[in-house]
């Protein structure tokens, strides 16, 4: 990796002050399980690395005014083991434990999982986030078996890598970001992930000078679940996942169905969710939900199989949540 300045400030305000206005000059370091690889492979070459490890307020999970507040520096293992999370959000437990390896669970953080960079192999081989070479999209023309089947008409064809993202969106979470001076703003999970249009943008809604501090997950008593389609049992990202949440205290209206690893962002399918607001979540509804969820998918040359996977994942997520 290229030499860089390392800072590990004690306060959030100080930390925010060390960030700049463009991506890539400073990189934020949480557990490092993704960032360190990118540094070594020179996918990013920051002049400063800002560690969040001393920011105590970013650690831990607490109950606050009808929400569970998850600090960005909470590890995936802590998340999966937390009794409230286990009781209310089985979807998040499935997603966190799905990451699998004990090392990642004990070092990787929730914030890092949400902000991790895409796994697109062109990106990881140094061709940039949009994988362009001589004006041609390498992924569109080339090896795209793991790429997007939704929202693939723009320049970004990678898929969002986070397993937690779809679950948090399904649960109606809000992300809290701290910016210059430590001022915070909240971003609905539905808007947290985005498809960049140029190499100067990133795939999350944070600004270059913002830190993700916590995630608020409302306790609405929604039934929720995730189904992950994985090839191997460990050390691998899923092919496709589906997160669902429905039911709950207020009755119908709050259902969400969100697919993972099928688009540059977790992919919400309101039409499928609508079914869950109205019909009993039985086998038939689940299958119909799966069917509806994949309508409008536009596969690339090598990834039509993901449609079948997405259909199955949604069906099984619904049945898992019941």
């Amino acid at each position, binding site marked *: 990796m290229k030499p860089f300045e390392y800072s590990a400030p004690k306060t959030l305000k100080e930390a925010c002050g060390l960030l700049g206005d463009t991506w890539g000059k400073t990189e934020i370091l949480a557990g490092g399980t993704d960032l360190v690889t990118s540094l070594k492979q020179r996918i990013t070459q920051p002049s400063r690395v800002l560690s969040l490890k001393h920011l105590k307020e970013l650690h831990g999970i607490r109950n606050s005014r009808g929400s569970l507040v998850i600090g960005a520096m909470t590890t995936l293992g802590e998340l999966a083991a937390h009794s409230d999370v286990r009781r209310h959000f089985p979807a998040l437990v499935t997603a966190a434990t799905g990451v699998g390896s004990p090392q990642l669970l004990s070092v990787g953080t929730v914030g890092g999982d949400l902000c991790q960079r895409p796994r697109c192999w062109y990106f990881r081989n140094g*061709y940039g986030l949009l994988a362009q070479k001589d004006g041609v999209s390498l992924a569109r023309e080339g090896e795209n078996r793991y790429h997007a089947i939704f929202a693939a008409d723009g320049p970004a064809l990678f898929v969002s890598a986070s397993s937690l993202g779809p679950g948090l969106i399904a649960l109606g979470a809000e992300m809290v970001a701290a910016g210059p001076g430590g001022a915070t703003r909240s971003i609905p999970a539905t808007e947290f992930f985005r498809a960049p249009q140029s190499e100067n943008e990133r795939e999350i809604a944070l600004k270059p000078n913002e830190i993700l501090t916590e995630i608020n997950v409302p306790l609405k008593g929604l039934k929720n679940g995730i189904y992950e389609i994985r090839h*191997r049992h460990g050390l691998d990202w899923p092919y496709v996942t589906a997160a669902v949440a429905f039911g709950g205290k207020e009755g119908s209206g709050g259902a969400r169905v969100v697919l993972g690893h099928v688009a540059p962002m977790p992919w919400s399918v309101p039409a499928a969710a609508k079914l869950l607001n109205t019909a009993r979540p039985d086998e038939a509804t689940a299958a119909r939900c799966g069917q509806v969820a994949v309508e409008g998918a536009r596969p690339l040359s*090598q990834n039509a199989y993901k449609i079948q996977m997405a259909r199955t994942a949604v069906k099984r997520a619904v049945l898992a949540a019941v």
Partner: protein
Amino acid sequence: MAKVDWPEASKRTLIGKRISRTDGPLKVTGAAKYSYDISRPGLLYVKLVTSPHPKAEISGIDGTAAAAVPGVKAVWKDEELQEVQYVGQIVAAVAAETEEIATDAAHQVKVEYRVREHQVRDNDPALSKDKPSNLTVGNLDEGFAKADVTMNGNYGCPVITHCCLEPHGQVTEYRDGELYIWPSTQNVSRYSDGLRNDVDLPQNKIHVDCQHMGGGFGSKFDTDKWGKIGVTLAKMTGRPVKIMLDRDTELMIAGNRPSAYAKIKVGAKRDGTITAVDAEVWGTGGGGGYSAPPIPYVFGKIPNRRLVGKGIRTNRGGQRAWRAPNHPQGCFLTMSAFADTAALLKMDELEFFQRNIQFTDRPTVYTEELNKAAELIGYKRRAHLRGDASPGPIKRGLGVSIHTWGGQGHPSECDVTIHPDGSVEAACGTQDLGVGTRTCIAMVVAETLGIPLQAVKVKIGRNEYPQSGASGGSTTIGGISVSSRQGATAALNALLEVAAKRLGIQPDLLEARDGQIREVDNGSKRISWKDACALLGPSPITKRGVNVPGESAKANLASQGVGGAQIADVSVDIETGIVTMNELVAVQDCGLIINLKLAESQVYGALIMGITSALYEEAVYDTRTGKMLNADMEFYRLAGIKDVGKLTVHMMTGKGYDDRGVIGLGEPPVISPAAAIANAVANAVGVRVPQLPLTPERVLAALAQRGGSAA
């Protein structure tokens, strides 16, 4: 006098038993030192500069900036290299005080490339520019005319790599005018041959040391370019240097197994008898030549057959021997086509294989092994014709495959020394690739001398020990078992002479057993091992045992030619395409087994490697950039322990097997897994998934084509 023949079963104390490897504790405690672990005073670290282009002319290499980086001690440039032929090809190297400095400086070496057009595709026979090979036997037209059915199928397996967990490399040091090298090598005795043009020293001044190895699988026979760079940089800097390949380089250039895609036509009679096989195969071994894998594999006596091979030259890293070169490919292609022929006939797959068993070299062995495998997996009870008809998305199936290998022991020499204090040493310039060679030598010597295993000190892994062959082709166990047996027997006979004088009987009435030299079958005259050795006076006995392959075969000490049958049991989720291993049964013969536990362990390892190639492994090359996109361990997937399912190993022993002498085992069990698993998947889902690895996308595509995918 002691005879060199292997003892019969009732007399064996160690041979054939399940004995843990003697270096196990060293490995689990981390005390075992691999090349990567070797550290020398003043050690420098080397990073390689490799080509980012699949094909380019080099017009200049500028190392000035790199050399100026503080901590850099030398920059080596390949001045002779005019054109690179694949991504990852080594162009220059930097030696520095730390690995980090070397890495950073390597990025500052400026290479001027003039990029040329490349070609990395390997799956279209039209890309072949070489003259096709053609092997025709019998008469194809007549053969197909006799057939009641004709099966046409297309199959393929991609390039995969060796992916040794310990990458290639070595530590190199000049000290007092002599050269010391700690390489990760399959070829200790002759490693330095590769330095003939680089070093002006005789072999006795080039000291090669490889005590432990983290896998080679056929990719670590040579000194390699990095071996030579090590010598050059050690000379340039006057310091010891370490070069170990990074994982991406390892995956791109340190060993590719050629791909094999095939169009196969099989003719068979209604009763299953095969009348003809016509195969066209194509694939790549990188920029070099290509030799078509054998089809029909194992069933080599099918009377009418043709094999056409078409090599495709690509700008990819070169091929290297991969555990049983060409056999896994030939096996997968053949067994797939045969299982599809059975399916066409609506015939049970196992019955179909058995119907044609006369076309193999060892019908009796294969029949025994297939029966055993069938029994172990409960075949009769569970087999069904193609397509699991039970309801639900999870389909289960069984698949069968058989294979063959040679395994003749290589030339090997071993010195066995009996010291006057009763201690024993065996020295042999062989290497232990992690398979237990060290343990096996100790067992053979201890067995021969009638002393405990721990009493034998084994010295291997250095080229100053008596020469022993490279470990490739499953040749090591045959070689070292015979040479150590010969050496130990000769040393014992010398000791028996001395003991006989003391005991006052003829030496040929004596035997070594239970730590004693004693009268055969009687034991009334005896002397303890220690006392007998003390009779030697100050000088030890050293005798050299030599394995001469032809002779040891004649004497039934070591021979060649094994079978092997495997049956896989898989579940396939037809809504996701995920294949899950339930069980893989392997029945394997390898003549006289020296250590049953290590033999089984060897088979377990092979099964895991085979499962990995069946389900996960593939070098993915991008047509446009010419890059291997998955030169990492994220997308170049290997099976983890939870992915492999239950592994059941049965070694054939006893009459008909033990009496064949020692035969190699490293290769054969890795040949069949992919074939058996692919057949099991077809049996489960009712449709052939024609390409390895059997990824969910391929399974779903095959199902979709048939219109069979549920949901």
